[in-house]
């Protein structure tokens, strides 16, 4: 793990005490830059983000093509054609990012690996409650994690699941145009499980809203962490690393 | 001599599953029970559904009279929601329903009823030249040549000589009740085959306006087929010309084949004008609205009630007087099994009390059928073509009086002959002629409207459930090929809360009510009714078939 040295910084004349922004500056007054996210993960994150936005927009057109109506001559505008094309192309991108991210769950660093992304350790569940209280403004110290805190873990677990269901239901719908084909046969279990292809369509439609609701909360929490907690999460998903209090003990720092 | 117990089950050449039980003494029927042995529960299934979907569900009550439940359902929902459909949609519905009548009646006559009167085996002995002479004497139909009838006969001979009689196996051939000479039998057999091809052709009118047959599509608020003379995918001139040609071919066949055959055959069976009359109360709710469903004065077939065969008075019809009884039926009512319920309070709660299958007899049981017993003001009613023609005749309807008088004149019988098995079968043919002629009027009105620029086929103002009242109810009437039909719907919070159908065959095949009054089938079978050989119950078939039973309709 690399840590880049920084030139000494003047301490801002800030009061110390119990504020929500108590980490500004860190109590120890020392910064440390921690590298968290490898390039492939960052690349996949933004590709996935773009794909999800594209899927949601085109998906809604597919679901309710009211907002653009074609011109007089058919084959001329090809609106639905393009929407579906973008939808399926974005779906391909999303699947690609999922594959890479899935591989990175095994091959990535300890912050990127399986255990860091899903709340699988008992301690995560204890800390999750503390984190929740922090968000409810009932707790001044959130549990200190370098990587994902347990709430993030849970929400990403959830969002991974939702994305997986979207992909699976999406492919089940997609496969219908070639019933004898690999996709349709491979995903035949989906309508069987859901109770018919219309239920699959319904699930695909409803879960889009879950994804959409995720976006503002996700971005807010990222921004909040950056501005209030000064944890540099936003920059971390761009540059790969974040500043942290050099003295702080991080729960996940010693993870294997 | 003790009464012989007779069972005919299945009654074939009908829609559905009907069992007739009877007692015969000295070549006569002394008692009879009609039992419908199928139940599907569609009224229960309708609960909680979107009222706009209802037509499609209830359409599947019957695939033989495939149009009628769908239209009655649309009318009921439209009545509940206060929707008035555009005149074009009404005309298109008339055309579709009109063609349904024509096709259904012709199929009934040739394919379901004819073998009761026509001896197929006897046709093998006919002289085709004689058949040709007979046919020419009654009709200008082009297929009247000796060669034509010879070819039909050869085909039949080849068929029979293969030794595989198929659907003709075990028919009652040679029974003394068959009265037609071989030449007339051959003519009927030829038209049996011709009608098969004809019906397939003319029914395409349904496909043009409704996309398919059986079970063409309808729409609450109008019809889904848009009219646009400038588009290939809509009702345009090409489609309309096809429709017009079908209407013409339908009329030609009805006037030149069905009607002449009917008159010719009836001439040999005049004794049946005194047999099987039964119930003398008749009900017609009216059909073919020509100026909107609520303009009862402009129904092509007027509505009304005739009591005790008294043609001097036509009573006004009020749907509030319809009640259904289950005294003899396998159901239960919360308020006890002897009360009658108006359909707005109607209940469909199956409760089988018959013997475990297999059984031998139902006669003598208190409850013996899945058919409910509708009564109008407490009285059993006979419905169907005869009821329609009688109400129209008694109301002074010009077309009906014309054709009824003409037919009576041809057969040399008086109006009393109508109250019989033969009367029912004849009335069916007469009204088919009237409808086949009237189709052109509806078609021309449609063309006039389109010409004047009105192409509207759908009223969409009340399409969205947000425009509906929290609760409402509606009644859709329609006189179907087999008689008076009603659908009653109640809607709560956008969903169907109650759906009840009282169907022509429910009226006709109804069992005894709490006063022991028989339903029309039963009453007809005990009205001066012969049964020469209980092993060959051809007489029972004649009378039952004259009603054109539809059990899937009646019980639903």
């Amino acid at each position, binding site marked *: 793990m690399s840590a880049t040295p920084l030139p000494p910084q003047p301490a*801002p004349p800030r*009061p110390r*005490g*119990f504020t929500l922004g108590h980490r500004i500056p860190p109590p120890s007054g020392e*910064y440390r830059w921690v590298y968290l996210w490898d390039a492939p993960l960052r690349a996949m994150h933004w590709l996935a983000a773009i794909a999800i936005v594209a899927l949601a927009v085109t998906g809604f057109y597919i679901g*309710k093509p009211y907002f653009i109506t*074609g*011109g007089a001559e058919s084959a001329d505008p090809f*609106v*639905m054609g393009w*929407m579906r094309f973008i939808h399926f192309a974005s779906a391909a991108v999303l699947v690609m990012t999922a594959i890479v991210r899935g591989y990175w769950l095994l091959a990535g660093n300890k912050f990127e690996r399986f255990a860091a992304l899903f709340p699988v350790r008992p301690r995560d569940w204890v800390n999750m409650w503390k984190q929740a209280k922090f968000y409810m*403004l009932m707790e001044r110290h959130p549990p200190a994690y370098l990587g994902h805190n347990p709430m993030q873990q849970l929400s990403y677990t959830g969002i991974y699941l939702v994305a997986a269901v979207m992909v699976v239901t999406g492919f089940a719908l997609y496969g*219908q145009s070639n019933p004898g084909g690999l996709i349709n046969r491979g995903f035949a279990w989906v309508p069987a499980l859901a*109770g018919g*292809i*219309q239920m699959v*369509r*319904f699930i695909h*439609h409803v879960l889009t*809203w879950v994804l959409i609701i995720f976006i*503002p*909360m996700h971005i807010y929490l990222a921004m909040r962490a950056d501005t209030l907690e000064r944890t540099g999460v936003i920059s971390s998903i761009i540059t790969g690393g974040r500043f942290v209090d050099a003295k702080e003990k991080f729960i996940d720092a010693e993870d294997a | 001599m003790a009464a012989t117990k007779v069972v005919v*089950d*299945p*009654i074939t050449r009908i829609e559905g599953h009907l069992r007739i039980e009877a007692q015969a003494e000295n070549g006569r029927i002394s008692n009879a029970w009609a039992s419908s042995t199928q139940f*599907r529960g*569609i009224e229960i*299934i309708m609960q909680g559904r*979107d009222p706009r979907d209802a037509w499609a569900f209830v359409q599947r009550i*019957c*695939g*033989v009279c495939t149009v009628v439940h769908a239209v009655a359902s649309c009318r009921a929902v439209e009545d509940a929601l206060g929707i008035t459909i555009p005149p074009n949609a009404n005309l298109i519905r008339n055309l579709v329903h009109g063609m349904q009548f024509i096709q259904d009646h012709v*199929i009934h006559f040739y394919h379901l009823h004819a*073998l009761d009167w026509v001896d197929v085996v006897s046709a*093998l002995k006919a002289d085709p030249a004689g058949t040709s002479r007979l046919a020419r004497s009654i009709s200008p139909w082009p297929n009247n040549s000796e060669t034509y009838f010879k070819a039909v006969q050869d085909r039949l001979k080849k068929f*029979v000589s293969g*030794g595989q009689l*198929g*659907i003709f*196996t*075990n*028919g*009652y051939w040679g029974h003394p009740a068959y009265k037609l000479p071989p030449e007339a039998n051959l003519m009927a057999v030829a038209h049996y085959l011709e009608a*098969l*091809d004809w019906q*397939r052709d003319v029914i*395409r009118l349904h496909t043009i306006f*409704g*996309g*398919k047959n059986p079970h063409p599509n309808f*729409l609450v608020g109008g019809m889904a087929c*848009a009219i646009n003379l400038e*588009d290939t995918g809509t009702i345009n001139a090409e489609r309309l010309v096809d429709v017009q040609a079908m209407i013409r071919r339908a009329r030609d066949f009805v006037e030149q084949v069905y009607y002449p055959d009917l008159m010719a055959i009836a001439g040999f069976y005049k004794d049946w004008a005194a047999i099987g009359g039964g119930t003398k109360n008749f009900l017609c709710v009216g059909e073919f609205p020509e100026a909107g469903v609520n303009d009862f004065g402009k129904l092509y077939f007027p509505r009304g009630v005739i009591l005790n065969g008294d043609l001097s008075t036509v009573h006004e019809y009020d749907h509030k007087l319809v009640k259904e009884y289950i005294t003899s039926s396998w159901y239960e009512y919360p308020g006890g099994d002897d009360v009658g319920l108006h359909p707005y309070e109607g209940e469909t709660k199956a409760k089988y009390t018959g013997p475990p*299958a*297999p059984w*031998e007899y139902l006669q003598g049981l208190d409850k013996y059928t899945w058919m409910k017993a509708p009564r109008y003001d407490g009285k059993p009613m006979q419905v169907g073509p005869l009821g329609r023609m009688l109400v129209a005749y008694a109301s002074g309807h010009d077309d009906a009086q014309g054709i009824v008088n003409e037919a009576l004149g041809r057969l040399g019988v008086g109006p009393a002959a109508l109250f019989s098995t033969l009367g029912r079968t004849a009335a069916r043919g007469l009204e088919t002629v009237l409808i086949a002629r009237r189709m052109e009027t509806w078609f021309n009105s449609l063309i006039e409207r389109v010409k004047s620029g009105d192409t*509207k*086929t759908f009223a*969409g103002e009340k399409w969205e459930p947000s425009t509906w009242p929290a609760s409402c109810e509606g009644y859709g009437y329609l006189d179907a090929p087999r008689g008076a039909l009603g659908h009653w719907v109640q809607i709560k919070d956008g969903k169907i809360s109650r759906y009840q159908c009282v169907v022509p065959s429910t009226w006709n095949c109804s069992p005894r009510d709490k006063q022991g009054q028989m339903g029309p089938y039963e009453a007809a079978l005990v009205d001066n009714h012969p049964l020469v050989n209980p092993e060959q119950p051809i007489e029972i*078939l004649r009378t039952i078939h004259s009603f054109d039973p539809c059990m899937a309709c009646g019980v639903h």
Partner: protein
Amino acid sequence: MSFAAPSWFPATESVEDELARRGVSRREFMEYCSSLCIVLGVGKSEAPRMAAAILADRRPSVIWIQLQECTGCVESVIRTSEPSIGTLVLDQISLDFSHTLMAAAGHAAESAAAAAMAAEKGKYLLVVTGSIPLADDGIYLTIGGRTAKVILEEAAEGAAAIIALGACAHWGSVQAARPNPTGAVGVSEVIKNRPVVNIAGCPPIADVVTATVAHFLTFGRLPAVDGDGRPLFAYGARIHDQCPKRANFDAGQFVEKFDDEGARKGWCLYEVGCKGPATFSPCPIFQWNSHTDWPIGAGHPCIGCTERGFWDTMTPFYGRLPDVGGFGIESKVDILGAALAIGATAGVVAHAAATSVHQMRERKRSLPVVDPTSGGPGTPKA
């Protein structure tokens, strides 16, 4: 389309063998032939020739039983275009039992069926329309005092193959719609030991039925089927992928309300609930009633009538999505979704505001305890 008798048909079998296998004595058979000759007016002496002809040129036997149904499927088959129903029944098959067309009734009809089943045992094609109500010991449909299940099992026993014709025989259709008061099921729920092909549709297109019969008679076996037992030649592709309005779909040209501009241009019915995207059927290709038109062609959305369970899964017919728990109608789901999304955004904003208020308060409160010596310049660690 022409039907040759299948190769296994006993044309080469000797008359004696054939009769022995059928359990008919030669004497009985010759008496039958003699009486037939008399009926035909050709004289008894022709009986041996007739006997040979009868045994050499038999049409394949088809037995058609009708259970819990609306008879729409029978009506549909009667509309078959090629071959016509007359040709089919008189020249190509021997329809040995049909409730709708049979001349005989009651015992006479039932014994005709029983005789055909015995004589053609193991060889006849059984056609079934209608479902089998299994609830309450099957008393919701009896014929001749016997339940549908018993009748079906008996008829299936000697059948070479079974055609389950129409949605009722396929899976129960309308009477099997929620709450299925009679416990209606399709043929393959009852008969497990015979080949069953499902001709889907409520009703199916007649030509699909006759083509399936032709396939059986010509090739001696049932056609290849999909996962739901439907012949691939008819149900192998989705309506949406064969629909002439697909160009309008791709172009974004939709009927938004019935009889609107789009409807008058024959545009795509997707927005008014067309189930073509979820339905496998040859309707756009075969079309209905001698290729006259088809539901979508005549302006009404497909209701998905060839799909198992369509009365529950494809409703509401005029909505694109199912009505799950009274909440599936698109607008409701979308209103809720949008409300939650807006709510989430608003919540996020409110939370941010609350945080800053809280923070300001905290800061004010904590001012007096400031330790000015802390917070010196830190040295980042390597």
